[in-house]
Protein backbone atom coordinates (compact mmCIF):
# COMPACT_ATOMS: atom_id res chain seq x y z
CA UNK A 1 0.00 0.00 0.00
CA UNK A 2 2.73 2.42 0.99
CA UNK A 3 4.57 1.89 -2.24
CA UNK A 4 1.42 2.47 -4.17
CA UNK A 5 0.84 5.73 -2.32
CA UNK A 6 4.30 6.93 -3.15
CA UNK A 7 3.79 6.08 -6.78
CA UNK A 8 0.43 7.79 -6.79
CA UNK A 9 1.95 10.91 -5.39
CA UNK A 10 4.74 10.82 -7.88
CA UNK A 11 2.81 10.46 -11.09
CA UNK A 12 0.76 13.66 -11.10
CA UNK A 13 3.75 15.92 -11.11
CA UNK A 14 2.60 18.06 -13.99
CA UNK A 15 3.15 21.83 -13.94
CA UNK A 16 -0.52 22.20 -13.06
CA UNK A 17 -0.11 20.23 -9.89
CA UNK A 18 2.54 22.20 -8.05
CA UNK A 19 1.55 20.99 -4.65
CA UNK A 20 4.64 18.81 -4.23
CA UNK A 21 5.93 20.45 -1.08
CA UNK A 22 4.33 20.43 2.34
CA UNK A 23 2.28 17.53 3.68
CA UNK A 24 1.55 16.14 0.21
CA UNK A 25 5.19 15.76 -0.67
CA UNK A 26 6.17 12.15 -1.27
CA UNK A 27 7.21 10.56 1.99
CA UNK A 28 10.44 9.03 0.80
CA UNK A 29 11.83 12.33 -0.46
CA UNK A 30 10.69 14.23 2.57
CA UNK A 31 12.64 11.84 4.78
CA UNK A 32 15.88 12.54 2.96
CA UNK A 33 15.69 16.23 3.77
CA UNK A 34 17.70 16.20 7.03
CA UNK A 35 20.48 14.36 5.24
CA UNK A 36 20.51 16.92 2.49
CA UNK A 37 20.90 19.69 5.04
CA UNK A 38 23.58 17.75 6.84
CA UNK A 39 25.52 17.05 3.66
CA UNK A 40 25.26 20.63 2.49
CA UNK A 41 26.25 22.14 5.83
CA UNK A 42 28.99 19.79 6.84
CA UNK A 43 30.41 18.37 3.63
CA UNK A 44 29.71 20.53 0.61
CA UNK A 45 30.14 23.97 2.20
CA UNK A 46 33.38 23.07 4.01
CA UNK A 47 34.67 21.59 0.77
CA UNK A 48 33.89 24.81 -1.07
CA UNK A 49 35.57 26.78 1.70
CA UNK A 50 38.69 24.63 1.43
CA UNK A 51 38.73 25.01 -2.34
CA UNK A 52 38.30 28.78 -1.95
CA UNK A 53 41.11 29.11 0.59
CA UNK A 54 43.33 26.73 -1.33
CA UNK A 55 43.10 28.73 -4.52
CA UNK A 56 43.43 32.27 -3.07
CA UNK A 57 46.10 34.25 -1.25
CA UNK A 58 45.84 36.55 1.80
CA UNK A 59 44.42 39.29 -0.42
CA UNK A 60 41.69 37.01 -1.76
CA UNK A 61 43.23 36.91 -5.23
CA UNK A 62 43.32 33.71 -7.24
CA UNK A 63 46.62 31.89 -7.03
CA UNK A 64 48.10 28.42 -7.46
CA UNK A 65 50.92 29.12 -5.03
CA UNK A 66 49.27 27.20 -2.18
CA UNK A 67 48.81 24.15 -4.34
CA UNK A 68 52.35 24.48 -5.64
CA UNK A 69 53.63 24.38 -2.04
CA UNK A 70 53.45 20.60 -2.31
CA UNK A 71 56.41 20.80 -4.72
CA UNK A 72 58.57 22.14 -1.92
CA UNK A 73 61.15 19.36 -1.31
CA UNK A 74 60.24 19.19 2.39
CA UNK A 75 56.56 18.80 1.67
CA UNK A 76 57.16 16.34 -1.14
CA UNK A 77 59.20 14.27 1.26
CA UNK A 78 56.37 14.40 3.83
CA UNK A 79 53.89 13.27 1.18
CA UNK A 80 56.23 10.53 0.02
CA UNK A 81 56.81 9.31 3.53
CA UNK A 82 53.09 9.37 4.35
CA UNK A 83 52.41 7.40 1.19
CA UNK A 84 55.12 4.90 2.01
CA UNK A 85 54.05 4.33 5.61
CA UNK A 86 50.35 4.11 4.86
CA UNK A 87 51.06 1.71 2.01
CA UNK A 88 53.12 -0.51 4.27
CA UNK A 89 50.49 -0.46 7.02
CA UNK A 90 47.72 -1.17 4.51
CA UNK A 91 49.63 -4.18 3.22
CA UNK A 92 50.31 -5.41 6.76
CA UNK A 93 46.64 -4.93 7.67
CA UNK A 94 45.60 -6.86 4.58
CA UNK A 95 47.98 -9.71 5.33
CA UNK A 96 46.75 -9.91 8.92
CA UNK A 97 43.07 -9.33 8.23
CA UNK A 98 42.49 -11.59 5.23
CA UNK A 99 43.34 -14.91 6.86
CA UNK A 100 41.57 -13.83 10.04
CA UNK A 101 38.41 -12.85 8.16
CA UNK A 102 38.52 -16.11 6.25
CA UNK A 103 38.92 -18.25 9.36
CA UNK A 104 36.16 -16.31 11.11
CA UNK A 105 33.76 -16.64 8.20
CA UNK A 106 34.36 -20.39 7.97
CA UNK A 107 34.08 -21.23 11.62
CA UNK A 108 30.58 -22.23 12.62
CA UNK A 109 31.38 -21.79 16.28
CA UNK A 110 29.34 -19.61 18.56
CA UNK A 111 32.57 -17.90 19.44
CA UNK A 112 32.62 -16.18 16.04
CA UNK A 113 30.49 -13.31 17.26
CA UNK A 114 32.68 -13.02 20.31
CA UNK A 115 35.84 -12.77 18.21
CA UNK A 116 34.28 -10.20 15.90
CA UNK A 117 33.29 -8.29 19.00
CA UNK A 118 36.86 -8.41 20.32
CA UNK A 119 38.04 -6.95 17.03
CA UNK A 120 35.57 -4.10 17.24
CA UNK A 121 36.01 -3.51 20.95
CA UNK A 122 39.09 -1.22 20.75
CA UNK A 123 37.07 1.07 18.48
CA UNK A 124 34.86 1.86 21.44
CA UNK A 125 37.77 3.51 23.21
CA UNK A 126 39.10 6.89 22.30
CA UNK A 127 41.48 6.82 19.38
CA UNK A 128 43.81 9.38 20.99
CA UNK A 129 43.86 7.47 24.23
CA UNK A 130 44.82 4.24 22.52
CA UNK A 131 47.64 5.92 20.64
CA UNK A 132 48.97 7.54 23.81
CA UNK A 133 48.80 4.12 25.43
CA UNK A 134 51.05 2.78 22.67
CA UNK A 135 53.41 5.66 23.34
CA UNK A 136 53.67 4.53 26.96
CA UNK A 137 54.21 0.95 25.93
CA UNK A 138 56.92 1.73 23.40
CA UNK A 139 58.80 4.51 25.21
CA UNK A 140 62.49 4.18 26.09
CA UNK A 141 61.43 3.73 29.70
CA UNK A 142 58.07 2.26 28.71
CA UNK A 143 56.46 -1.05 29.54
CA UNK A 144 58.25 -3.15 26.93
CA UNK A 145 61.66 -1.89 27.87
CA UNK A 146 60.97 -2.22 31.57
CA UNK A 147 60.11 -5.86 31.05
CA UNK A 148 63.13 -6.41 28.81
CA UNK A 149 65.37 -4.73 31.35
CA UNK A 150 64.00 -6.95 34.09
CA UNK A 151 65.09 -10.00 32.12
CA UNK A 152 68.40 -8.28 31.37
CA UNK A 153 67.68 -8.14 27.67
CA UNK A 154 68.78 -5.26 25.44
CA UNK A 155 66.23 -2.47 25.13
CA UNK A 156 64.39 -1.88 21.88
CA UNK A 157 63.98 1.62 20.60
CA UNK A 158 61.12 1.77 18.18
CA UNK A 159 59.42 4.86 19.54
CA UNK A 160 59.89 7.81 17.18
CA UNK A 161 60.74 5.52 14.26
CA UNK A 162 58.64 4.71 11.17
CA UNK A 163 58.08 1.27 12.70
CA UNK A 164 56.24 2.81 15.65
CA UNK A 165 54.01 4.81 13.32
CA UNK A 166 53.24 1.74 11.23
CA UNK A 167 52.43 -0.16 14.40
CA UNK A 168 50.07 2.62 15.46
CA UNK A 169 48.38 2.68 12.06
CA UNK A 170 47.98 -1.09 11.91
CA UNK A 171 46.67 -1.25 15.45
CA UNK A 172 44.16 1.53 14.94
CA UNK A 173 42.92 0.65 11.47
CA UNK A 174 43.03 -3.18 11.44
CA UNK A 175 39.31 -3.55 12.31
CA UNK A 176 38.45 -1.48 9.25
CA UNK A 177 40.21 -4.10 7.14
CA UNK A 178 38.82 -7.16 8.92
CA UNK A 179 35.15 -6.21 8.92
CA UNK A 180 34.53 -5.53 5.19
CA UNK A 181 36.47 -8.65 4.21
CA UNK A 182 34.60 -10.71 6.80
CA UNK A 183 31.33 -9.34 5.50
CA UNK A 184 31.93 -10.44 1.91
CA UNK A 185 33.36 -13.76 3.06
CA UNK A 186 30.27 -14.78 5.00
CA UNK A 187 28.15 -13.97 1.96
CA UNK A 188 29.99 -16.48 -0.24
CA UNK A 189 27.66 -19.48 -0.54
CA UNK A 190 29.34 -22.64 0.73
CA UNK A 191 27.83 -24.46 -2.25
CA UNK A 192 29.73 -22.17 -4.63
CA UNK A 193 32.94 -23.33 -2.98
CA UNK A 194 31.64 -26.91 -3.05
CA UNK A 195 30.88 -26.48 -6.76
CA UNK A 196 34.46 -25.47 -7.47
CA UNK A 197 35.75 -28.50 -5.57
CA UNK A 198 33.20 -30.66 -7.35
CA UNK A 199 34.48 -29.46 -10.72
CA UNK A 200 37.97 -30.62 -9.86
CA UNK A 201 39.60 -27.63 -8.21
CA UNK A 202 41.85 -28.37 -5.25
CA UNK A 203 41.95 -26.12 -2.20
CA UNK A 204 44.48 -23.67 -3.64
CA UNK A 205 42.72 -23.43 -7.00
CA UNK A 206 39.37 -22.89 -5.29
CA UNK A 207 40.88 -20.07 -3.25
CA UNK A 208 42.57 -18.36 -6.19
CA UNK A 209 39.72 -18.68 -8.69
CA UNK A 210 36.65 -18.42 -6.50
CA UNK A 211 37.16 -17.14 -2.96
CA UNK A 212 39.73 -14.46 -3.79
CA UNK A 213 37.85 -12.88 -6.73
CA UNK A 214 34.58 -12.96 -4.81
CA UNK A 215 36.17 -11.27 -1.81
CA UNK A 216 37.78 -8.45 -3.81
CA UNK A 217 34.99 -5.93 -3.07
CA UNK A 218 35.63 -6.36 0.64
CA UNK A 219 39.37 -6.07 0.12
CA UNK A 220 38.89 -2.84 -1.84
CA UNK A 221 36.68 -1.43 0.90
CA UNK A 222 39.21 -2.46 3.50
CA UNK A 223 42.15 -0.96 1.64
CA UNK A 224 40.24 2.29 1.22
CA UNK A 225 39.28 2.44 4.86
CA UNK A 226 42.83 1.78 6.05
CA UNK A 227 44.83 3.62 3.42
CA UNK A 228 42.96 6.93 3.46
CA UNK A 229 43.04 7.60 7.20
CA UNK A 230 46.65 6.37 7.34
CA UNK A 231 47.66 8.73 4.59
CA UNK A 232 46.08 11.75 6.22
CA UNK A 233 46.81 11.04 9.88
CA UNK A 234 48.82 13.48 11.91
CA UNK A 235 47.94 12.25 15.39
CA UNK A 236 49.66 8.87 15.13
CA UNK A 237 52.80 10.38 13.63
CA UNK A 238 52.84 13.18 16.20
CA UNK A 239 52.48 10.89 19.20
CA UNK A 240 54.45 7.83 18.07
CA UNK A 241 56.83 9.64 15.74
CA UNK A 242 57.69 12.34 18.24
CA UNK A 243 57.65 14.98 15.48
CA UNK A 244 60.85 13.49 14.15
CA UNK A 245 59.00 11.91 11.26
CA UNK A 246 56.90 14.46 9.47
CA UNK A 247 54.02 13.20 7.37
CA UNK A 248 51.90 15.28 5.02
CA UNK A 249 49.17 15.33 7.66
CA UNK A 250 51.53 17.01 10.10
CA UNK A 251 52.57 19.58 7.51
CA UNK A 252 48.97 20.55 6.82
CA UNK A 253 48.10 20.60 10.52
CA UNK A 254 51.10 22.85 11.16
CA UNK A 255 49.93 25.33 8.54
CA UNK A 256 46.49 25.60 10.15
CA UNK A 257 48.09 25.93 13.60
CA UNK A 258 50.13 28.93 12.53
CA UNK A 259 47.06 30.43 10.95
CA UNK A 260 47.98 29.96 7.32
CA UNK A 261 44.65 28.55 6.15
CA UNK A 262 45.52 29.21 2.52
CA UNK A 263 48.63 27.03 2.49
CA UNK A 264 46.93 24.32 4.54
CA UNK A 265 43.91 24.22 2.26
CA UNK A 266 46.05 24.20 -0.86
CA UNK A 267 47.94 21.13 0.26
CA UNK A 268 44.73 19.48 1.48
CA UNK A 269 43.38 19.81 -2.03
CA UNK A 270 46.45 18.10 -3.43
CA UNK A 271 46.07 15.30 -0.90
CA UNK A 272 42.40 14.93 -1.77
CA UNK A 273 43.16 14.64 -5.46
CA UNK A 274 45.91 12.18 -4.63
CA UNK A 275 43.40 10.02 -2.73
CA UNK A 276 40.82 10.28 -5.51
CA UNK A 277 43.37 9.07 -8.07
CA UNK A 278 44.37 6.19 -5.79
CA UNK A 279 40.74 5.17 -5.39
CA UNK A 280 40.12 5.42 -9.11
CA UNK A 281 43.04 3.10 -9.80
CA UNK A 282 41.86 0.74 -7.09
CA UNK A 283 38.28 0.58 -8.30
CA UNK A 284 39.49 -0.54 -11.73
CA UNK A 285 40.30 -3.84 -10.10
CA UNK A 286 36.83 -4.10 -8.72
CA UNK A 287 34.51 -5.38 -11.43
CA UNK A 288 31.56 -5.91 -9.16
CA UNK A 289 31.52 -2.43 -7.66
CA UNK A 290 32.37 -2.53 -4.00
CA UNK A 291 30.04 -1.58 -1.22
CA UNK A 292 31.93 1.60 -0.45
CA UNK A 293 32.73 3.29 -3.73
Amino acid at each position, binding site marked *: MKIRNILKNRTPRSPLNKNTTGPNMPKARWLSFPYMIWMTGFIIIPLIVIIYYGLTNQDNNFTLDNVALILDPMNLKALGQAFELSLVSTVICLLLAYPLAMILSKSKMNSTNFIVMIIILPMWMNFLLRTIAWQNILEKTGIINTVLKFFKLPAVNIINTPAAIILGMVYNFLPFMVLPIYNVMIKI*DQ*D*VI*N*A*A*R*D*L*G*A*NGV*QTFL*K*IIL*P*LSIPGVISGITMVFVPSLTTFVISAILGGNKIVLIGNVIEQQFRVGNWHAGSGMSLVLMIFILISMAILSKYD*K*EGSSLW
Partner: protein
Amino acid sequence: MTDNKLINLVNITKSYGDNIVLDDLNLYIRENEFVTLLGPSGCGKTTTLRIIGGFETPDKGQVIFEGKDITKLPPNERQVNTVFQKYALFNHMTVAENIAFGLKIKKKSKAYIQDKIKYALKLVNLDGYENRMPDSLSGGQQQRIAIARAIVNEPKVLLLDEPLGALDLKLRQDMQYELIRLKNELGITFVYVTHDQEEALTMSDTIVVMNQGYIQQIGTPEEIYNEPKNAFVADFIGDSNIFPGIMVEDKLVNIFGVNFVCVDTGFGHNKPVDVVIRPEDIDLVKPDDGIIKGVVTSLIFKGVHYEMEVHACDHDWLVHSTDLFPVGTEVGIWVDPFDIQIMNKPESEDEEAVEVEL
Protein backbone atom coordinates in the same frame (compact mmCIF):
# COMPACT_ATOMS: atom_id res chain seq x y z
CA MET B 1 20.35 -51.45 -17.85
CA THR B 2 23.15 -53.63 -16.60
CA ASP B 3 23.34 -55.11 -13.16
CA ASN B 4 26.66 -53.42 -12.64
CA LYS B 5 26.82 -51.70 -9.26
CA LEU B 6 28.42 -48.33 -9.96
CA ILE B 7 28.05 -46.85 -6.51
CA ASN B 8 27.65 -48.90 -3.39
CA LEU B 9 26.91 -47.32 -0.04
CA VAL B 10 27.70 -49.73 2.74
CA ASN B 11 26.53 -49.26 6.34
CA ILE B 12 26.61 -45.48 6.11
CA THR B 13 25.99 -43.72 9.42
CA LYS B 14 26.10 -39.97 9.84
CA SER B 15 25.05 -37.73 12.67
CA TYR B 16 25.34 -34.09 13.55
CA GLY B 17 25.69 -33.85 17.28
CA ASP B 18 22.85 -35.86 18.77
CA ASN B 19 20.89 -35.79 15.55
CA ILE B 20 21.30 -39.05 13.64
CA VAL B 21 20.75 -38.20 9.98
CA LEU B 22 21.60 -41.55 8.44
CA ASP B 23 21.49 -44.82 10.33
CA ASP B 24 23.24 -47.81 8.81
CA LEU B 25 22.18 -47.02 5.27
CA ASN B 26 22.83 -49.53 2.50
CA LEU B 27 22.15 -48.64 -1.09
CA TYR B 28 23.58 -49.47 -4.46
CA ILE B 29 23.16 -47.54 -7.68
CA ARG B 30 23.52 -49.26 -11.02
CA GLU B 31 25.17 -47.89 -14.13
CA ASN B 32 22.98 -45.74 -16.36
CA GLU B 33 20.17 -45.61 -13.85
CA PHE B 34 18.00 -42.64 -12.91
CA VAL B 35 17.73 -43.00 -9.15
CA THR B 36 15.66 -40.62 -7.07
CA LEU B 37 16.08 -40.21 -3.34
CA LEU B 38 12.65 -39.13 -2.17
CA GLY B 39 11.50 -38.05 1.25
CA PRO B 40 10.43 -35.17 3.46
CA SER B 41 12.97 -32.60 4.59
CA GLY B 42 15.31 -33.96 7.19
CA CYS B 43 15.04 -37.54 5.97
CA GLY B 44 18.72 -37.72 5.06
CA LYS B 45 18.39 -37.67 1.27
CA THR B 46 20.57 -34.61 0.74
CA THR B 47 23.15 -35.89 3.20
CA THR B 48 23.30 -39.14 1.24
CA LEU B 49 23.92 -37.17 -1.95
CA ARG B 50 26.59 -35.04 -0.29
CA ILE B 51 28.33 -38.16 0.93
CA ILE B 52 28.44 -39.49 -2.64
CA GLY B 53 29.69 -36.09 -3.83
CA GLY B 54 32.35 -35.96 -1.15
CA PHE B 55 31.13 -32.88 0.71
CA GLU B 56 30.37 -34.91 3.81
CA THR B 57 32.28 -37.77 5.32
CA PRO B 58 30.22 -40.53 6.92
CA ASP B 59 30.92 -41.33 10.57
CA LYS B 60 30.82 -45.01 9.73
CA GLY B 61 30.54 -47.03 6.55
CA GLN B 62 32.02 -46.97 3.09
CA VAL B 63 31.33 -45.40 -0.27
CA ILE B 64 32.38 -47.80 -3.01
CA PHE B 65 32.68 -46.42 -6.54
CA GLU B 66 33.40 -48.93 -9.32
CA GLY B 67 34.72 -51.33 -6.71
CA LYS B 68 37.08 -48.82 -5.11
CA ASP B 69 36.63 -47.31 -1.66
CA ILE B 70 36.34 -43.54 -2.16
CA THR B 71 35.02 -42.70 1.30
CA LYS B 72 37.97 -40.46 2.11
CA LEU B 73 38.51 -39.02 -1.38
CA PRO B 74 37.99 -35.24 -1.68
CA PRO B 75 35.28 -34.05 -4.14
CA ASN B 76 37.78 -32.87 -6.75
CA GLU B 77 39.14 -36.41 -7.16
CA ARG B 78 35.77 -38.08 -7.68
CA GLN B 79 34.28 -38.88 -11.07
CA VAL B 80 30.96 -37.36 -10.12
CA ASN B 81 29.60 -33.87 -10.62
CA THR B 82 26.88 -32.09 -8.73
CA VAL B 83 24.08 -29.72 -9.70
CA PHE B 84 23.30 -27.70 -6.61
CA GLN B 85 19.90 -26.62 -5.40
CA LYS B 86 20.56 -22.90 -5.68
CA TYR B 87 22.63 -23.28 -8.85
CA ALA B 88 25.87 -22.16 -7.11
CA LEU B 89 27.12 -20.51 -10.30
CA PHE B 90 30.27 -18.40 -10.20
CA ASN B 91 28.77 -14.95 -10.50
CA HIS B 92 32.08 -13.28 -11.24
CA MET B 93 32.47 -15.30 -14.44
CA THR B 94 30.60 -15.37 -17.73
CA VAL B 95 28.47 -18.34 -18.69
CA ALA B 96 31.29 -19.66 -20.90
CA GLU B 97 33.85 -19.26 -18.10
CA ASN B 98 31.52 -21.07 -15.73
CA ILE B 99 31.20 -24.01 -18.09
CA ALA B 100 34.91 -24.01 -18.87
CA PHE B 101 35.90 -24.03 -15.18
CA GLY B 102 36.28 -27.76 -14.72
CA LEU B 103 37.92 -28.25 -18.12
CA LYS B 104 40.48 -25.49 -17.51
CA ILE B 105 41.39 -27.10 -14.21
CA LYS B 106 41.95 -30.33 -16.10
CA LYS B 107 44.13 -28.36 -18.55
CA LYS B 108 42.20 -29.29 -21.67
CA SER B 109 43.11 -27.54 -24.92
CA LYS B 110 41.41 -24.28 -25.88
CA ALA B 111 39.80 -25.80 -28.94
CA TYR B 112 38.45 -28.71 -26.91
CA ILE B 113 37.01 -26.35 -24.31
CA GLN B 114 35.37 -24.17 -26.99
CA ASP B 115 33.78 -27.24 -28.58
CA LYS B 116 32.55 -28.46 -25.22
CA ILE B 117 31.00 -25.09 -24.32
CA LYS B 118 29.14 -25.01 -27.63
CA TYR B 119 27.99 -28.59 -27.25
CA ALA B 120 26.84 -28.15 -23.66
CA LEU B 121 24.95 -24.92 -24.34
CA LYS B 122 23.22 -26.59 -27.27
CA LEU B 123 22.31 -29.53 -25.08
CA VAL B 124 20.59 -27.28 -22.54
CA ASN B 125 19.01 -25.11 -25.27
CA LEU B 126 20.97 -21.96 -24.46
CA ASP B 127 23.08 -21.44 -27.59
CA GLY B 128 24.57 -17.99 -27.81
CA TYR B 129 24.59 -17.31 -24.07
CA GLU B 130 28.39 -17.65 -23.78
CA ASN B 131 29.14 -14.08 -22.80
CA ARG B 132 26.20 -13.42 -20.50
CA MET B 133 26.72 -13.05 -16.77
CA PRO B 134 24.86 -15.60 -14.63
CA ASP B 135 22.90 -13.03 -12.62
CA SER B 136 21.38 -11.65 -15.83
CA LEU B 137 19.66 -14.99 -16.44
CA SER B 138 16.37 -16.35 -15.12
CA GLY B 139 16.28 -19.12 -12.54
CA GLY B 140 15.56 -21.79 -15.13
CA GLN B 141 18.38 -20.59 -17.36
CA GLN B 142 20.80 -20.49 -14.44
CA GLN B 143 19.91 -24.04 -13.55
CA ARG B 144 20.56 -25.13 -17.15
CA ILE B 145 23.97 -23.47 -17.01
CA ALA B 146 24.67 -25.30 -13.76
CA ILE B 147 23.77 -28.56 -15.50
CA ALA B 148 25.91 -27.66 -18.53
CA ARG B 149 28.82 -26.80 -16.23
CA ALA B 150 28.58 -30.22 -14.63
CA ILE B 151 28.11 -32.39 -17.71
CA VAL B 152 31.02 -31.01 -19.78
CA ASN B 153 33.29 -32.85 -17.36
CA GLU B 154 31.78 -36.11 -18.57
CA PRO B 155 31.07 -37.46 -15.11
CA LYS B 156 30.04 -41.07 -14.67
CA VAL B 157 27.39 -39.88 -12.25
CA LEU B 158 25.50 -36.62 -12.12
CA LEU B 159 24.20 -35.72 -8.68
CA LEU B 160 21.22 -33.38 -8.61
CA ASP B 161 20.16 -31.80 -5.33
CA GLU B 162 16.56 -30.61 -5.72
CA PRO B 163 17.61 -28.78 -8.88
CA LEU B 164 14.07 -27.72 -9.76
CA GLY B 165 13.08 -26.65 -6.27
CA ALA B 166 13.44 -22.94 -6.95
CA LEU B 167 11.50 -22.94 -10.23
CA ASP B 168 7.82 -22.35 -10.81
CA LEU B 169 5.44 -25.19 -11.61
CA LYS B 170 5.30 -24.88 -15.41
CA LEU B 171 9.06 -24.52 -15.75
CA ARG B 172 9.55 -27.41 -13.36
CA GLN B 173 7.45 -29.68 -15.56
CA ASP B 174 9.32 -28.61 -18.70
CA MET B 175 12.64 -29.20 -16.98
CA GLN B 176 11.54 -32.67 -15.92
CA TYR B 177 11.23 -33.70 -19.55
CA GLU B 178 14.51 -31.95 -20.36
CA LEU B 179 16.29 -33.90 -17.65
CA ILE B 180 14.91 -37.21 -18.91
CA ARG B 181 16.04 -36.29 -22.45
CA LEU B 182 19.48 -35.25 -21.16
CA LYS B 183 19.90 -38.47 -19.26
CA ASN B 184 19.04 -40.50 -22.34
CA GLU B 185 21.37 -38.49 -24.56
CA LEU B 186 24.29 -38.59 -22.15
CA GLY B 187 23.79 -42.20 -21.10
CA ILE B 188 25.11 -41.60 -17.59
CA THR B 189 23.80 -42.27 -14.11
CA PHE B 190 21.63 -39.62 -12.47
CA VAL B 191 21.14 -39.51 -8.72
CA TYR B 192 18.35 -37.09 -8.03
CA VAL B 193 17.17 -35.73 -4.70
CA THR B 194 13.67 -34.34 -4.28
CA HIS B 195 10.79 -34.07 -1.85
CA ASP B 196 8.34 -33.83 -4.76
CA GLN B 197 6.73 -37.21 -5.30
CA GLU B 198 5.36 -36.27 -8.70
CA GLU B 199 8.85 -35.35 -9.91
CA ALA B 200 10.13 -38.66 -8.62
CA LEU B 201 7.37 -40.69 -10.29
CA THR B 202 7.81 -38.89 -13.62
CA MET B 203 11.56 -39.17 -14.05
CA SER B 204 12.96 -42.10 -12.16
CA ASP B 205 13.95 -45.64 -13.05
CA THR B 206 14.24 -46.36 -9.36
CA ILE B 207 12.85 -44.47 -6.39
CA VAL B 208 14.37 -44.69 -2.94
CA VAL B 209 11.86 -43.48 -0.36
CA MET B 210 13.57 -42.27 2.79
CA ASN B 211 12.39 -41.12 6.18
CA GLN B 212 14.32 -40.18 9.30
CA GLY B 213 17.57 -41.60 8.05
CA TYR B 214 16.14 -44.93 6.98
CA ILE B 215 15.28 -46.28 3.57
CA GLN B 216 11.58 -47.11 3.60
CA GLN B 217 11.29 -48.68 0.17
CA ILE B 218 13.27 -49.10 -3.03
CA GLY B 219 11.45 -49.81 -6.25
CA THR B 220 10.25 -48.66 -9.63
CA PRO B 221 7.73 -45.80 -9.63
CA GLU B 222 4.95 -48.31 -10.29
CA GLU B 223 5.96 -50.53 -7.41
CA ILE B 224 6.27 -47.58 -5.04
CA TYR B 225 2.86 -46.24 -6.03
CA ASN B 226 0.91 -49.45 -6.36
CA GLU B 227 2.54 -51.53 -3.69
CA PRO B 228 3.72 -49.27 -0.91
CA LYS B 229 5.53 -51.29 1.71
CA ASN B 230 4.32 -49.31 4.69
CA ALA B 231 1.94 -46.55 5.69
CA PHE B 232 4.65 -43.88 5.40
CA VAL B 233 5.35 -44.65 1.75
CA ALA B 234 1.65 -44.89 0.98
CA ASP B 235 1.01 -41.57 2.66
CA PHE B 236 3.98 -39.81 1.10
CA ILE B 237 3.38 -40.97 -2.46
CA GLY B 238 0.09 -39.59 -3.66
CA ASP B 239 -3.18 -39.45 -1.74
CA SER B 240 -4.32 -42.54 0.01
CA ASN B 241 -6.72 -43.94 2.56
CA ILE B 242 -4.76 -45.69 5.27
CA PHE B 243 -6.93 -47.68 7.68
CA PRO B 244 -6.10 -50.04 10.49
CA GLY B 245 -7.34 -53.52 9.65
CA ILE B 246 -7.16 -57.11 10.76
CA MET B 247 -6.03 -59.82 8.40
CA VAL B 248 -8.68 -62.46 9.10
CA GLU B 249 -7.09 -65.04 6.84
CA ASP B 250 -5.40 -65.15 3.45
CA LYS B 251 -7.26 -62.97 0.96
CA LEU B 252 -9.68 -61.57 3.55
CA VAL B 253 -9.18 -58.39 5.55
CA ASN B 254 -11.48 -56.84 8.13
CA ILE B 255 -11.75 -53.06 8.05
CA PHE B 256 -13.97 -51.37 10.67
CA GLY B 257 -15.80 -54.64 11.23
CA VAL B 258 -16.51 -55.33 7.57
CA ASN B 259 -14.75 -58.07 5.64
CA PHE B 260 -13.15 -57.07 2.35
CA VAL B 261 -11.83 -59.57 -0.17
CA CYS B 262 -8.21 -58.86 -1.14
CA VAL B 263 -5.41 -60.70 -2.94
CA ASP B 264 -2.70 -60.64 -0.27
CA THR B 265 -1.57 -63.79 1.44
CA GLY B 266 0.92 -64.82 4.08
CA PHE B 267 0.08 -62.34 6.82
CA GLY B 268 -1.22 -65.00 9.22
CA HIS B 269 -4.52 -65.17 11.02
CA ASN B 270 -6.20 -62.28 12.84
CA LYS B 271 -3.12 -60.15 12.57
CA PRO B 272 -3.35 -56.33 12.80
CA VAL B 273 -2.24 -54.69 9.55
CA ASP B 274 -2.39 -51.34 7.76
CA VAL B 275 -4.66 -51.21 4.74
CA VAL B 276 -4.02 -48.78 1.90
CA ILE B 277 -6.66 -47.94 -0.66
CA ARG B 278 -5.90 -45.29 -3.28
CA PRO B 279 -8.75 -42.77 -3.67
CA GLU B 280 -9.03 -43.46 -7.41
CA ASP B 281 -9.46 -47.17 -6.69
CA ILE B 282 -12.67 -46.67 -4.75
CA ASP B 283 -15.81 -47.04 -6.89
CA LEU B 284 -18.95 -45.28 -5.80
CA VAL B 285 -22.04 -47.30 -6.67
CA LYS B 286 -25.70 -47.51 -5.70
CA PRO B 287 -26.07 -47.94 -1.90
CA ASP B 288 -27.09 -51.58 -2.10
CA ASP B 289 -24.42 -52.57 -4.66
CA GLY B 290 -21.46 -51.62 -2.48
CA ILE B 291 -19.61 -53.46 0.24
CA ILE B 292 -20.45 -50.72 2.73
CA LYS B 293 -22.80 -47.75 2.70
CA GLY B 294 -21.87 -44.12 3.21
CA VAL B 295 -22.85 -40.49 2.67
CA VAL B 296 -20.94 -37.94 0.58
CA THR B 297 -19.83 -35.15 2.94
CA SER B 298 -17.69 -32.98 0.71
CA LEU B 299 -17.15 -32.43 -2.99
CA ILE B 300 -14.33 -30.55 -4.68
CA PHE B 301 -13.77 -30.18 -8.42
CA LYS B 302 -10.11 -30.88 -9.21
CA GLY B 303 -10.12 -30.55 -12.99
CA VAL B 304 -9.44 -34.11 -14.09
CA HIS B 305 -11.68 -35.60 -11.41
CA TYR B 306 -13.90 -34.82 -8.45
CA GLU B 307 -12.51 -35.27 -4.98
CA MET B 308 -15.13 -36.48 -2.54
CA GLU B 309 -15.19 -37.48 1.07
CA VAL B 310 -17.55 -40.25 1.97
CA HIS B 311 -18.48 -40.88 5.58
CA ALA B 312 -18.82 -44.61 6.15
CA CYS B 313 -18.24 -46.84 9.18
CA ASP B 314 -17.57 -43.67 11.19
CA HIS B 315 -14.56 -42.81 9.03
CA ASP B 316 -13.94 -40.50 6.08
CA TRP B 317 -12.98 -42.21 2.85
CA LEU B 318 -11.18 -40.10 0.24
CA VAL B 319 -12.53 -40.84 -3.23
CA HIS B 320 -11.42 -39.63 -6.67
CA SER B 321 -13.97 -40.12 -9.40
CA THR B 322 -14.98 -38.62 -12.70
CA ASP B 323 -18.60 -39.22 -11.70
CA LEU B 324 -20.29 -36.57 -9.60
CA PHE B 325 -22.16 -37.43 -6.41
CA PRO B 326 -23.58 -34.30 -4.71
CA VAL B 327 -23.04 -33.77 -0.98
CA GLY B 328 -25.63 -35.73 1.00
CA THR B 329 -26.01 -38.50 -1.55
CA GLU B 330 -26.15 -41.97 -0.09
CA VAL B 331 -23.66 -44.18 -1.92
CA GLY B 332 -22.21 -47.64 -1.80
CA ILE B 333 -18.45 -48.15 -1.62
CA TRP B 334 -16.92 -50.86 -3.75
CA VAL B 335 -13.23 -51.77 -3.91
CA ASP B 336 -11.81 -54.40 -6.24
CA PRO B 337 -9.80 -57.02 -4.35
CA PHE B 338 -6.54 -56.23 -6.19
CA ASP B 339 -6.87 -52.54 -5.27
CA ILE B 340 -6.55 -53.28 -1.57
CA GLN B 341 -2.95 -53.08 -0.40
CA ILE B 342 -2.08 -54.81 2.88
CA MET B 343 0.99 -53.73 4.86
CA ASN B 344 2.56 -54.96 8.06
CA LYS B 345 2.23 -52.61 10.98
CA PRO B 346 5.57 -51.00 11.80
CA GLU B 347 7.29 -53.21 14.36
CA SER B 348 9.83 -50.90 15.89
CA GLU B 349 9.72 -47.23 16.65
CA ASP B 350 12.36 -46.64 13.99
CA GLU B 351 10.05 -47.76 11.26
CA GLU B 352 7.13 -45.81 12.55
CA ALA B 353 5.46 -43.82 9.86
CA VAL B 354 5.32 -40.14 10.60
CA GLU B 355 2.66 -37.66 9.64
CA VAL B 356 3.82 -35.78 6.60
CA GLU B 357 2.82 -32.29 5.67
CA LEU B 358 2.55 -31.97 1.93
